[in-house]
């Protein structure tokens, strides 16, 4: 039975592969696809805890960019962040961040940002898209700049959002006495051309 499956699967797969490649336009597409390089990226955030600006980061996140420098509107961006990879240099606090009253990482393990285009601004670029955290989706214009590097591209920028807009803080955690509402986010992503 197993040999039978293999027998069928191989020609089927090659058929699919040929089909896919023949669907590609003969000229290079205007948008080039980039994915996050294995290293060199950072996603950090700064929040106010008990009156002190405190930094943390997400260790695992993935970025997918289709980029057309001449026509930003044809570009698109997708970022997904693994909530459980949060690192505030204190394991107790990291556990607290994952609990249901805050990010509820068990139920909402991934936060995403999706934008279907980029627009030029006075200072650089902007990605008008949707930010989804803890199951709540909000429109957001993500400021960013993109520059060429030896390995590909580097996307960077910073923004801020209010955690309570996304329900990060239920019950008594809605209080902003200990943990402020505003969270600043800084991102620097090393991108390489996808094969």
């Amino acid at each position, binding site marked *: 039975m197993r040999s039978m499956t293999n027998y069928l699967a191989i020609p089927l797969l090659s058929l699919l592969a040929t089909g896919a490649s023949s669907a590609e336009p003969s000229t290079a597409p205007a948008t080039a696809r980039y994915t996050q390089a294995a290293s060199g990226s950072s996603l950090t955030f700064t929040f106010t*805890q*008990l*009156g*002190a600006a405190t*930094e943390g980061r997400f260790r695992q996140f993935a970025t997918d960019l289709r980029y057309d420098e001449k026509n930003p509107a044809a570009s698109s961006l997708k970022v997904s962040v693994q909530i459980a990879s949060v690192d505030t*240099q204190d394991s107790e*606090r990291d556990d607290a961040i994952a609990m249901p009253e805050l990010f509820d990482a068990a139920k909402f393990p991934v936060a995403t940002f999706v934008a279907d285009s980029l627009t030029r601004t006075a200072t650089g670029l902007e990605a008008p898209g949707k930010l989804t955290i803890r199951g709540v989706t909000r429109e957001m214009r993500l400021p960013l700049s993109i520059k060429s590097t030896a390995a590909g591209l580097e996307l960077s920028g910073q923004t801020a959002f209010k955690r309570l807009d996304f329900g990060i803080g239920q019950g008594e955690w809605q209080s902003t006495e*200990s943990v402020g509402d505003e969270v600043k986010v800084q991102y620097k992503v090393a991108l390489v051309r996808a094969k």
Partner: protein
Amino acid sequence: MPLRNTTRSWGAVSKSLHWLIVLLIIGQWGIAQYAEDLPLLAKGPPLNLHKSIGMTILALAVIRLVWRLVNPVPSLQGLAKNWECRLAHFSHVMLYALLMAMPLTGWMMSSARNFPVSWFGQFQFPDLVSPSRTLYQRMNDLHETLFAVLVIVALLHVAGALKHHFFDRNEVLRRMLPFGGIK
């Protein structure tokens, strides 16, 4: 009461700093006891108060040491035996050292867990060390040990003052009392 010390009595600045620090330390102990068993979220504000007061004590201790260095120190000559002077001197050195070591170890505890120290939310102090769980644990233990040492030395200090007052019937205690003084 003059602001500055004389060779016979403490001035208003030294007295104020002495008693203010005493009150703050007692408060610090109370706040730490209160905060210890609170749930995670409720623990924050009292611990923050503890940290802010701790930094205040550190600053006051530095001011106090500087003030002591630029002022005459009331003498124990003729009021205490040699061994008493040596013991008193030892306990004073210990108290000054503890007044600084307690806040510094607390500050390191905060830095080691990436809970930066702010002063009543008004401004933020830089981190003293990089985050490390091991270092946090060590500083936590040290903070508690130093407090035990502080209690012992402070008791010795109080015992000495009371001995001077009730047994030797001299002015050593009276000259540090808030409104006391010597004629």
